[in-house]
């Protein structure tokens, strides 16, 4: 069995406010194997940042058993800190210092020898395309540059487990892809990544396993493929010019949900070229014209919207 970089059982957290206790994490179980990318996906306020803050020793959980990098989160917090790197949702750079000074500060705090620290800072400035800005105060950086510096600072000292809380929020598409490349390279070298995101595409691209967090509960977990299988599959939507064609098509295909108002027939399909060709051939043989056609393959968006939608409906149910 591979070792787990993160193992959490029954993680709970609530905040006290005016109207009593607000439960933010309601019993979360996590198992992240070493050397993999795990993505926590969820809408605003789901509890992603809270989870990261707890796992990175920034705040304490109210309950639950948690091991991070093999250490007990409560009793060995300092050992956990020695093993992890954190890039939080909000910028964590010293804005009054220059980019280079920020990196050297990290090197000193990681107790790297002077020469090694300088070397590492130089490499990271190059890797993150910050060489030109190295001597300028971080306060003058653009949002994307600060984000890059933030991640570069996290990488000083080569942590084995890295937390990234929405690392690409606010980045342009090019920078986002660059960030993905960096994350992939890290994992190639055996680093474990715990990543939160609101972008399903990002989770789909990067993550080995994805967990969907909503209202403080994990509502689904698995690989991107597994999650996509959770909801009604893909389909082909056929549109006809008149009701008679629609009525004729339905028995020929044997399956499909007709919509007489829209004059469409929704036929379950995996969306492959072969399946579509077969379908069209069948209709062609009977000379039934199709006016329009669209192919719909399920993506994580469907999973996300379907599952988080259910959750809200259930909550409404409970309120009644």
């Amino acid at each position, binding site marked *: 069995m591979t070792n787990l970089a993160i193992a959490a059982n029954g993680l709970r957290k609530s905040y006290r406010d005016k109207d009593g206790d607000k439960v933010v994490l309601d019993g979360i179980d996590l198992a992240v194997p070493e050397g993999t990318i795990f993505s926590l996906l969820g809408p605003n306020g789901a509890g992603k940042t809270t989870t990261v803050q707890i796992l990175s020793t920034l705040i304490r959980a109210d309950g639950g058993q948690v091991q991070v990098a093999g250490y007990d989160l409560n009793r060995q917090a300092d050992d956990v800190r020695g093993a992890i790197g954190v890039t939080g949702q909000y910028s964590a750079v010293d804005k009054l210092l220059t980019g280079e000074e920020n990196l050297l500060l990290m090197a*000193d*705090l990681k*107790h790297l020898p002077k020469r090694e620290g300088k070397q590492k800072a130089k490499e990271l400035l190059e890797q993150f395309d910050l060489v030109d800005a190295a001597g300028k105060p971080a306060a003058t950086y653009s949002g994307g540059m600060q984000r890059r510096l933030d991640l570069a600072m996290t990488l000083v000292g080569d942590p084995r487990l890295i937390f990234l809380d929405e690392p690409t929020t606010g980045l342009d598409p090019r920078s986002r892809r660059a960030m993905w490349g960096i994350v992939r390279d890290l994992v190639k070298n055996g680093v474990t990544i715990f990543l939160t995101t609101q972008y399903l595409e990002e989770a789909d691209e990067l993550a080995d396993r994805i967990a969907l967090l909503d209202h403080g509960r994990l509502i689904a977990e698995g690989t991107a493929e597994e999650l996509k299988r959770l909801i009604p599959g893909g389909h082909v939507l056929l549109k006809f010019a008149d009701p008679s064609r629609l009525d004729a098509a339905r028995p020929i295909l044997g399956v499909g949900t007709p919509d007489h108002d829209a004059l469409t027939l929704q036929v379950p399909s995996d969306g492959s070229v072969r399946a579509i060709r077969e379908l069209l051939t069948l209709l062609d043989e009977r000379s039934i014209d199709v006016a329009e056609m669209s192919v719909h393959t399920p993506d994580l968006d469907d999973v996300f919207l379907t599952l988080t939608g259910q959750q809200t409906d259930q909550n409404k149910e409970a309120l009644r």
Partner: protein
Amino acid sequence: MSALTLATRDSSTMVRRQLKRLLRYPSMTVQLIITPVIILLLFVYVFGGTLGTGLGGGRHTYINYVVPGILLMAAATAATGTAVMVATDMTEGIIARFRTMRISRASVLTGHVVASVIQQLLGMAVVIGIALAIGFRPNATPVEWLAAAGLLTLFVVAITWLAVALGLKSPTPEAASNAPMPLVFLPFLGSGFVPTDSMPTVLRWFAEYQPFTPIMQTVRGLLLGTPIGDNAAIATAWCTGIAAVSYLWAKKTYNKA
């Protein structure tokens, strides 16, 4: 490396961080030095003649009298700056980053304190330099100078830890700029600008028992040869006590947040 070596190393890293920040934005430092200098000039040239006469001399008598009070006021003004710096720093994301790193917890605070103490001692040196230029005439031996410098340093350390604790307690940097305000007035409500026996009873009682008075009396005694009595012991006790309590308070507040 032992825990103590690591703590020392992290603290010196944080001191360098803080000094760099202070050097990069010197306007605060400059302002903190200029304020007491202006007060010095104001008291010497505007009120000094009259107040000096009251002391049985003239303007020059008053310069000698007022310098210790100005030095303490300089430190108290600087404490306001430190509290604001700390409160501002706590709103920055970098502090969250520090908390997720395996570094000595108090090192961030130590960095603030040491850098501020250096800043303030420089400020005091400037004030003394200007005072000497306009007629301050201490008669201290090198040993007495050293003792005065030692006590002032102890005082600065104490008031800076207090400022750090107040800064940590403040919800916003604005609130932090008000918290240490009373300290700035303590030299006035003590023997800083006029002798306490010229004050009404209630005020005099307060002035004689508040911590700034024995400190000013001791510095005055060391530099100018006035009687010190048990003021030195009381002053040292106050400074050590304030430093210790503030240190623990600051550390606890930082760890809790």
